[in-house]
């Protein structure tokens, strides 16, 4: 499982993390992705990086499903802390609380932080 916790644009982690997810998806591995803390901001609608000159990649998260990332979790509290709801996000996700996310994380063989 990819556990993403970082905001986009300010650093490259979110973007390079996404690149890893896509490659793993192409490898046909069973993968899932979780977004918590600032990573939920990567999924926020309406991002336009044209004036800061970095690559805009929020749209790319929408291919995760096609790349075989069927389980996409967002932690509820992280959303709430940032004043966001599911409707503010660019893709369909399952919003779960921390305890549920912990349960899913506990079922994994590998947890990759990005």
């Amino acid at each position, binding site marked *: 499982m990819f556990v993403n916790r970082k905001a986009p644009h300010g650093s490259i982690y979110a973007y390079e993390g996404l*690149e890893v997810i896509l*490659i793993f998806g*192409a490898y046909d591995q069973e993968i899932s992705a979780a977004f918590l803390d600032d990573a939920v901001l990567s999924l926020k609608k309406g991002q336009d990086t044209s004036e800061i000159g970095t*690559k805009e*990649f929020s*749209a*790319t998260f929408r*291919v995760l499903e096609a*790349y075989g990332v069927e389980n996409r979790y967002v932690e509820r509290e992280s959303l709430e802390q940032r004043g966001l709801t599911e409707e503010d996000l660019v893709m369909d996700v399952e919003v779960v609380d921390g305890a549920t996310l912990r349960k899913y994380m506990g079922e994994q063989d590998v947890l990759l932080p990005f």
Partner: protein
Amino acid sequence: MATLEVNGKQHELDEDGFLANMDEWNEDVALALAKTESVEMTEAHWEVVNFLREYYAEYKIAPMIRILTKAIGKKLGKEKGNTKYLYELYPAGPAKQACKIAGLPKPTGCV
């Protein structure tokens, strides 16, 4: 840096012959890029190129081959959604060659 002249205009290419500035793409540029790859553009070729451009416009990436075949099969018909069909059109590899002609950035090649 190499350039490609199309209709009297110079277009910069990167070291692998990909269009350096995506915004300069048009159909004539595509034809010139196809020539550098020795690809004769037929309607079937355009179909793939246009598909890639639409995909890129929506998702900001070029799909990997496995995803490309699946998505093409869905959009253009099952008989076209396979690697063999795409390799017949683009022998050097659909992801790389078709992306180049479509004026998309070169795949990062991280696989």
